[in-house]
C-alpha cells in the first residue's frame, strides 16, 4: 500500500511500482507567505476602511480563479479556449435551478454543479481531439453564445431576460458587511486553493507532459505521451474548476443571469486577466485579476460616462507595452525557478 518516507528535504510517497517525490524548499516560501498574509489582512483592513473594497477583492479573486484553470486548459490541450464562461453558465444554472426548485443550500448544490460541469465538459471534450487552430477557437467561442440563446428560447426555465432570483445565499449572518467579509475570505481561500493545485500540477510530471503537448503534439505522441488522454483530462478538470465558480456566482449574488456571464464581454475580461497578468502564468493570473478588478472599480468611480471607452484602450496599450505581462516585470528581475515556466504559444 501507500508508503511515506520523510527525508531531510523531501517527502517520498510510494504506491505499488509508482513513486512520487515532493521536495520541500522552505527558502522559496517567504514571498508566497508574505503575499498570503497580505491577502488575509487586506479584507479585514478593507472592512474598517470601506466595505465596498471587499466586493472588488471578491471580483478579483474570482477573475483569477477563472483565469487559472483557463491557463491550465490552454497548456494541457495546446489550444486556446475562447468560451470558458460556458462552464460558468453550466455550474451557475445547475446551482440556481436546483436551489430555486428544491430550496437547497450551497453545500447541497455544489456536487451537482461539479457533476454537471464535468458532464458538459466530457460531452464537448472530443473538440480537443478533432478541432485545432481557428476551428477550435470558433467552436469554443460559439458554445456560450448558443447557450445564451437557449436561455432566451426556454425563458420559462432559464429566465433568460430577467435572470433567476431567489437562490439560497452562500451565507447569511444578518449583517451585510459581515457577510462581505466572510465571503471575501472564502473567495480568497478558493483562489489560493486553485493557485496551489494548478501550480503543483504544472510543476509536476503532468505539467511537463502538458507543456510538451502545448509545444508539439505529434512529437509528444512519438515520445510516448497518450495525448488524447492528457488533453481530455486537462479539458475536463479545468472546465470543472470553472464550473465551480459558476456555483459561487449563483449563491453569492442569490441570482443568476446568463446575460451577465455568457456574452463575449465577460470572456474578454478573463482573457485580459490572463494576458496582462502574465501570459498564462498562474501567479500572473492573480496579479492580473487584482489589476483588472481594481482598475475597473476606479474607472467606474472616477471616469463616469467615458469609462466604457477608456477601459479597453488602457488595456490595449498595456498589452502592447507589457508583452510578458505584469508578472513578467517581477520575473525578469528575480528569476529563481529550476524548472522552466510553461509558456503558451497558441
Amino acid at each position: 500500500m501507500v508508503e511515506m518516507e520523510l527525508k531531510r528535504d523531501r517527502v517520498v510517497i510510494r504506491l505499488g511500482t509508482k513513486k512520487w517525490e515532493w521536495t520541500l524548499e522552505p527558502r522559496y516560501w517567504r514571498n508566497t507567505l508574505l503575499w498570503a498574509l497580505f491577502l488575509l489582512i487586506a479584507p479585514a483592513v478593507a472592512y474598517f476602511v470601506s466595505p465596498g473594497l471587499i466586493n472588488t477583492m471578491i471580483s478579483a479573486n474570482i477573475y483569477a480563479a477563472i483565469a487559472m484553470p483557463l491557463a491550465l486548459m490552454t497548456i494541457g490541450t495546446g489550444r486556446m479556449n475562447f468560451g470558458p464562461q460556458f462552464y460558468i453558465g453550466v455550474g451557475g444554472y445547475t446551482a440556481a435551478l436546483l436551489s430555486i426548485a428544491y430550496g437547497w443550500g450551497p453545500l447541497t448544490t455544489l456536487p451537482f454543479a461539479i457533476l454537471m460541469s464535468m458532464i458538459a465538459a466530457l460531452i464537448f471534450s472530443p473538440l480537443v481531439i478533432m478541432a485545432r487552430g481557428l476551428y477550435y477557437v470558433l467552436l469554443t467561442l460559439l458554445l456560450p453564445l448558443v447557450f445564451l440563446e437557449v436561455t432566451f428560447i426556454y425563458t420559462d426555465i432559464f429566465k433568460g431576460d430577467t435572470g433567476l432570483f431567489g437562490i439560497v445565499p452562500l451565507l447569511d449572518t444578518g449583517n451585510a458587511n459581515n457577510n462581505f467579509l466572510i465571503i471575501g475570505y472564502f473567495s480568497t481561500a478558493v483562489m489560493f486553493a486553485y493557485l496551489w493545485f494548478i501550480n503543483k500540477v504544472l510543476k509536476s510530471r503532468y505539467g511537463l507532459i502538458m507543456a510538451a503537448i502545448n509545444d508539439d503534439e505529434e512529437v509528444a505522441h512519438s515520445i510516448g505521451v497518450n495525448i488524447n488522454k492528457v488533453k481530455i483530462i486537462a479539458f475536463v478538470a479545468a472546465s470543472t474548476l470553472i464550473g465551480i465558480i459558476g456555483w459561487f456566482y449563483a449563491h453569492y449574488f442569490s441570482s443568476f443571469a446568463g446575460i451577465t456571464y455568457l456574452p463575449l464581454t465577460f470572456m474578454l475580461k478573463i482573457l485580459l486577466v490572463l494576458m496582462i497578468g502574465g501570459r498564462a502564468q498562474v501567479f500572473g493570473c492573480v496579479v492580473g485579476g487584482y489589476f483588472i478588478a481594481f482598475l475597473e472599480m476606479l474607472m467606474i468611480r472616477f471616469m463616469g460616462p467615458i469609462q466604457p471607452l477608456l477601459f479597453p484602450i488602457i488595456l490595449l496599450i498595456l498589452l502592447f507595452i507589457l508583452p510578458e505581462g505584469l508578472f513578467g516585470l517581477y520575473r525578469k528581475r528575480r528569476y529563481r525557478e529550476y524548472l522552466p515556466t510553461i509558456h503558451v504559444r497558441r
Partner: protein
Amino acid sequence: MTPLLKVSNLVKRFGGIIAVNDVSFEIYKGETLGFIGPNGAGKSTVVNALTGFFPATSGKIELNGVDITHMKPHQRAHMGLARTYQIPRPFPELTALTSVLASSISGKKRINQSFQDAMFDATHYLEFVGLFSKRNILARDLTFYELRMLELARALATTPQLLFIDEVMAGLNPGEAKNAIKMIRKAKEEFGVTVFWIEHVMAVLMEAADRIVAINYGSKLAEGTPDEVVNNDDVIEAYLGRGWREYA
C-alpha cells in the same frame, strides 16, 4: 534467430497514390540497417508507418513477435520504438534538459521512477550527447547540430530497443556529421539499441550499416550487405537513370 522487427507486405496508400507498396524486411537485434532510396521513394513514409503516425493500409508489423500494426504511436513508444526527425522538431519553449526529461518520464514505463529520478536520467542522456552545458537553454535557441543531438538524446531517453534515424547528416557540416555518426555508434554500444538508419549520403551507410534495404517508388529494390546493394543494377538505375551504362 527471431527478428526484432518484422515487416510483412506493408502497404500505405494515400487516396489513389501508393506510397509504400508491399515492402517486407526484417531487423535483427543489435544490427544497423541502412535504408536508402532516391527522393520521394517513400523512406520517411515507411518510418511513419512503422512508428504509427500513418496507419498501414495493409500488411503486418511485429516487434519481438508482438503484432503492433494497429497500435498508437505512444503505445509503440512504450514497446521500445523511438525516432528522430529529418528536420529537427524540438519542443521550442522547453529547455534542453526538460525536453529530454519529458521523454524520460513518458517513454518506456519504468518502475519506481519519480520526477526527480527522471531528471537524473535526463541529465545522463544530455551529457552523453554533449549538451550538458546547454541544459538550461531553450530548445529554440540551440544550433542545428545541437538540435540534432537533442533529438538523439530525446529518443534515447525513452529507452528504445529500436531507434529510427531519419537523415541525420542533412544540414550538418563534415565535422559535425562525423561527430553525429560517432555519437550514434556510441549510443549503439552503450545502450544496446538497434538502429534503423535512413540516409542519403551513401558513404556513411557503407561504413556504418550491416545491411541495407533499398526502395524506389515505394517498392523494395534490393536487400543485402552494403557492397551487394551498391553494385545492384536496379539500385544504380534508380539513382542515376536508365541510360547510366552508356556513360559508365
